[in-house]
């Protein structure tokens, strides 16, 4: 067994209910430093709920979550946590620039009333370079494509320089160029020693650097082990009935961009 200080994330008997309906039941999961874990499972299997529970966004109805050794309710080491939500409201309402949204990722390291320091601005610039959007810094977020907006969300999180990255379906509704950019970015973070928990529909471009797959089914863990042993699309497995996912449907028209003359 690992020593407790290597445990980045520890869930014991976690249960979560939304509106009285149980979503997660009696779930145990331990993630250690440097692990790169894919969370797989059909729609409604509880992946997003699990991600929101480990980032403290949803209350538990039973069990315990410890992040970096600290119970989630008392957690205050926010600079170490990097959450990338699935869908975001960043392009709604009042206009905002890409740089402004990404700067929000530095707030875990900034004090109120104090202006941004050179280190904050540098981190924002580097995060945008990492996701390939450096030349978009001053563009309005709402003029970017869905895939580019997803990369903005990842850059926002990278700007905070976290040790644990938790991503909720970073590939949902994202074009192929952005999917590749996201995979490259995460692989680089993984090589640099970051711990990654990523919700995915399929391993896809992420397969080369995922070293552990966890499959959820009806709020419980149905598989936890090397990705080679995971068969999310096995009709008897965890993902029965989820063959035609939304992101696959949306991908179709992009094939022209990659040079297939139609």
């Amino acid at each position, binding site marked *: 067994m690992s020593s407790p200080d290597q445990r980045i994330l520890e869930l014991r008997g976690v249960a979560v209910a939304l509106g009285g309906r149980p979503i997660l039941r009696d779930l145990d999961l331990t993630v250690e430093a440097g692990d790169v874990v894919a969370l797989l499972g059909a729609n409604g299997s509880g992946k997003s709920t699990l991600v*929101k529970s480990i980032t403290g966004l949803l209350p538990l109805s039973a069990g315990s979550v410890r992040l970096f050794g600290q119970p989630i309710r008392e957690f205050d080491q926010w600079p170490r946590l990097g959450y990338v939500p699935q869908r975001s*409201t960043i392009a709604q309402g009042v206009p905002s620039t890409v740089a*402004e949204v990404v700067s*929000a990722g530095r707030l875990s390291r900034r004090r109120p009333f104090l202006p941004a320091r050179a280190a904050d601005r540098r981190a924002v610039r580097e995060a945008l370079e990492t996701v390939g959007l450096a030349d978009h810094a*001053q563009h309005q977020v709402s003029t970017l494509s869905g895939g*580019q907006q997803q990369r903005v969300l990842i850059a*926002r999180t990278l700007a*905070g320089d976290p040790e644990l990255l938790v991503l909720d379906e970073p590939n949902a509704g994202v074009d192929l160029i952005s999917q590749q950019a996201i995979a490259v970015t995460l692989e680089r973070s993984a090589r640099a020693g970051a711990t990654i928990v990523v919700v995915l529909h399929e391993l896809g471009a992420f397969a080369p650097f995922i070293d552990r797959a966890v499959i959820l089914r009806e709020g419980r863990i149905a598989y936890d082990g090397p990705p080679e042993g995971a068969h999310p699309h096995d009709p008897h497995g965890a993902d029965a009935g989820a063959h035609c996912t939304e992101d696959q449907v949306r991908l179709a028209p992009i094939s022209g*961009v*990659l040079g297939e003359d139609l």
Partner: protein
Amino acid sequence: MLDILFAPFMVKALFAAALTGLASPAVGTYLVQRKLSLMGDGIGHISVTGVALGLLTGTSPTLTAVIVAIIGAVAIEALRASGRASGDVALALIFYGGLAGGLMLVSFAGNGALALQSYLFGSITTLTNEDVWVSGTLAIVVIALCLTLLPQFFSVANDEDYARTTGLSVPVYNVLVSVLAALTVSVAMRTVGLLLVSALLVIPVATAQQFARGFRSTMLAAMVAGLLASVTGVVISAYVDVPPGSTIVLVALAGFALTAPIGVVLGKRRLARVPFEMPSEPEQQRVEEPHRHQHGPGCGHPAVEHGDHVDYIHNGHRHAVHGGHYDEH
């Protein structure tokens, strides 16, 4: 002819109008981002109860309005955050309770009904020195907090869940914005009146959104628009016999109407200028000439709106119909 602008009552009016014009859109930017554009209206209605309490008890109506407005604003935020009522229903509940309560209280105050008028419709030309100091101080506090806490307020208004995971206390910032909105309404009620207060919070922001690309630039442009509208409105009402409050709001609306067409054009040009991403892979084979394929709806090539025409993505290029051939865009 210009003398009237330097009369003491006019100097006070212009000073109050300028500060109101700067402070209101600063808070308004956060309210618009959070889809609470009508919050100013709600707080304005609650403030009627506050003003009535002041008139009834003989204390300063501004002071009682500030207190009641803050209580109301926090109540709206609490109702919204607890999920017991959605934002707009929460507003409506407090909205009408405040207005009805105020009218009831004023009816007990005898001739208070007349005094209430100056708060409902504004009375910027009858400000006392004390009024100017109180509202000036409040406006400066509002402006200072809106600008110095911009990164935090922006993050919370832009993506609440994410802001939580960076350790920001979302409820504290939301309540703080509500309190700032309440203070602004109390300041602006003497300038434009409680019935029109929301206009100064929202219209300059709508105007600024036409031009600005960023949140900060929207807020600063909205503050300039608010300042211009407020001062212009007061100056017009000094020469023409029209009420200053409604003049300010109409000038602000005229500013929006004049800039709206420019905003539409700018928005389209901006979309067209976003760099088009190309895969770095080597599939850049040249398009055969002459171009045999007829691009059109449903031709299989992704269509992209590009300014006034449509481009078709073909082998990683953008093809635009031009006469009998295609241009690379």
